């Protein structure tokens, strides 16, 4: 069972093959609590797989019913109705209509609706009857709704809908058991099928409103707390201030909280290296293991603490309901450059690393919004550029105070981050006017009620993100590390006489005009695995031992070896730095197109070249 899905999720051509067991699809509007129910029923053991063509995430898990039936459960993207305008919704509807080529039609649907949102969610339930699959309506968060004062006649609702209606609170066992029992009954009597004639949406809405009048006896006004919190968080002034504050704390934490755990990871890597050095003879094998695999994979794993902290913030903000407010606050600004407010989250994640950022872009509904977001994600200064910036700035800019209180080095660093953001705005704007031209995706986004996040769900989410990151480090980066090791270790015994050195000599004429010398070009080659590797490579070229730890030593050497314009050009190059292979690989997977991927690499390369060249020429002319 697990092996089947394992195999499938790595094989892009055949994702999520439905097995022979009874398959149930989870359907419902966004924010109806579908994922909580999924985690509750499957124990959180899910295989996340990409759907071919469009990379929309569908999760699949399995469980056993009290009647002893093994069932598989598919969590589909949220849908409000049957129009399927967005990539997400299309996938969901294709699956339940049996039109998905990769998967047979599920045997039944669990339609999840929020008991506190019946007036709008009944509309979704009514539309789903038109699909013609056996279905069960799960009346979710019923405890919460009752506590708020919602009173409803569930028997009447069941009679009028003509399908089983199970009151449930997805986080509680009793409710989930009732759902399982209902599934048992449904599986035993598969004839319990409904097929309602298709009707125009307007008519369905009227029916839903009528049904609502008949079954909901009492419904209190909207959550007071949420309204007063929105008065602060969405306020034109205080809302923006709080938002800026949260972002500031988040960035500070990603960098400051991660220092200690990153030290641990570093220690672990050094420990492993020592062990290997102790048990292997001093030959190519030791070099492959230590300099190639441990150093290469280690240089990426080191970012695990930062990624976990970043996702801790993102998941927390998402689960509390604040993330939708952040998108609200940013929407108009982002719309002006052609992006959707919801692209804010992926772009924010890209400051840690473009890879989780591009993956987070899956939440964007419009394909064009998603492509634009992925294309500009590498322009957000990722954390791997930080070591490079740090070394060069320390070498060429004195730590003096300017304008009374600003630290010059900090100011340069800020300028580099800012340059990335400005270029992202320009690129997004140009793309939206040309290649991803089209009608702006509407905002139309539910702002969920504020709530305190469920701790176990938060941890589960973190664990899933960490697993994805580590798996990548164990596969793509593992292979790339070996390749780069071969390039730098052979055929000669020094970097200059290695393949990397030869590649450097070949590429030198291309980079010479923008002020790069042979040493820089050689360092750029291993920098393709992970950008910060360039620091270590510069150390190797200039024969500075342990350059990562001994940044002062390297800075001193660079100061005498490079001209100031060259240093500036190198910094400008790194603002765009198209050379991280893992980013390119993930971009290819997420966009599912080589054309777009090459375009991304090409424009990044062109901008890096022009920026570095321009900086070099102007700086040379001025000096």
């Amino acid at each position: 069972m697990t092996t089947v899905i394992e195999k499938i999720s790595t094989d892009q051509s055949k994702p999520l093959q439905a097995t022979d067991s009874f398959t149930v699809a989870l359907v419902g509007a966004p924010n109806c609590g579908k994922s909580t129910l999924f985690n509750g029923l499957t124990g959180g053991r899910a295989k996340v797989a990409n759907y071919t063509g469009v990379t929309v995430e569908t999760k699949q898990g399995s469980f056993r019913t009290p009647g002893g039936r093994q069932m598989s459960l598919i969590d589909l993207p949220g849908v409000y109705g049957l129009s399927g305008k967005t990539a997400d919704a299309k996938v969901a509807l294709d699956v339940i209509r049996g039109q998905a080529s990769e998967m047979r039609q599920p045997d039944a649907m669990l339609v999840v609706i929020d008991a506190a949102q019946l007036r709008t969610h009944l509309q979704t339930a009514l539309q789903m009857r038109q699909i013609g699959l056996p279905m069960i309506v799960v009346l979710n968060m019923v405890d919460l709704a009752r506590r708020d004062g919602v009173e409803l006649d569930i028997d009447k609702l069941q009679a009028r809908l003509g399908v089983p209606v199970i009151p449930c609170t997805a986080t509680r066992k009793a409710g989930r058991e009732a759902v399982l029992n209902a599934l048992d009954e449904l599986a035993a009597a598969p004839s319990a099928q409904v097929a309602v004639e298709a009707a125009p949406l307007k008519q369905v809405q009227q029916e839903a409103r009528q049904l609502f009048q008949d079954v909901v006896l009492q419904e209190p006004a909207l959550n007071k707390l949420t309204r007063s919190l929105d008065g602060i968080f969405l306020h034109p002034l205080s809302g923006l201030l709080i938002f800026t504050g949260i972002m500031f704390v988040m960035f500070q934490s990603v960098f400051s909280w991660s220092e200690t755990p990153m030290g641990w990871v570093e220690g672990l890597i050094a420990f492993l290296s020592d062990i290997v050095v102790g048990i292997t003879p001093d030959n190519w094998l030791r070099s492959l293991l230590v300099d190639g695999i441990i150093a290469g994979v280690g240089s990426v794993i080191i970012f695990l603490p930062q990624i976990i902290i970043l996702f801790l913030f993102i998941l927390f903000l998402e689960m509390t309901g604040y993330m939708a407010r952040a998108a609200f606050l940013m929407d108009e600004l982002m719309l002006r450059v052609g992006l959707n407010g919801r692209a804010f989250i992926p772009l924010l994640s890209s400051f840690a690393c473009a890879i989780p950022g591009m993956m987070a872009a899956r939440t964007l509904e419009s394909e064009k919004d998603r492509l634009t977001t992925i294309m500009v994600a590498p322009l957000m200064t990722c954390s791997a550029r930080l070591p490079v910036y740090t070394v060069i700035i320390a070498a060429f800019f004195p730590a003096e105070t300017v304008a009374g209180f600003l630290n010059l080095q900090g100011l340069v660093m800020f300028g580099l981050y800012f340059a990335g953001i400005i270029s992202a705005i320009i690129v997004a704007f140009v793309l939206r006017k040309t290649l991803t031209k089209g009608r702006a995706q509407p905002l139309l986004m539910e702002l969920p009620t504020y709530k305190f996040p469920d701790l176990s769900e938060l941890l589960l989410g973190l664990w899933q993100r960490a697993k994805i990151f580590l798996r990548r480090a164990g596969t793509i980066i593992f292979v790339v590390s070996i390749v780069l090791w071969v390039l730098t270790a052979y055929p000669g015994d020094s970097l200059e006489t290695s393949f990397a050195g030869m590649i450097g000599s070949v590429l030198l004429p291309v980079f010479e005009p923008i002020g790069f010398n042979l040493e820089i070009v050689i360092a750029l080659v291993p920098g393709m695995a992970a950008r910060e590797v360039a620091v270590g490579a510069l150390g190797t070229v200039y024969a500075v031992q342990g350059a990562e730890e001994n940044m002062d030593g390297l800075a001193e050497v660079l100061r005498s070896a490079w001209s100031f314009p060259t240093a500036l050009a190198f910094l400008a190059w790194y603002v765009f730095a198209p050379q991280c292979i893992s980013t390119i690989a993930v971009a290819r997977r997420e966009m599912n197109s080589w054309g777009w991927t090459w375009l991304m690499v090409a424009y990044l390369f062109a901008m890096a070249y022009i920026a570095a060249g321009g900086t070099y020429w102007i700086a040379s002319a001025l000096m």
Partner: protein
Amino acid sequence: MTEKLTLRNLKRGETGIVTGFVKNDAIREEELREIGFAEGDEVQVLEYGSFGRTPISVRLNRTIIAVRANEAQSIEVSRA
């Protein structure tokens, strides 16, 4: 011809009843209907965005939905 009142015309805190959708954009009407706007529903303008009073957070029955100004212009309302 008098301009019909739309959700965009309601002031912060004001409540209205949806009477229909502006007829020039069928795609937008369907999008709005799908997320839950329908004739007879109560809407209330809660908050405005910081730049040009858009987007708008709107209470639709017991749900809060963020809509842009141009989307709000497609929803016809009468003052409650």
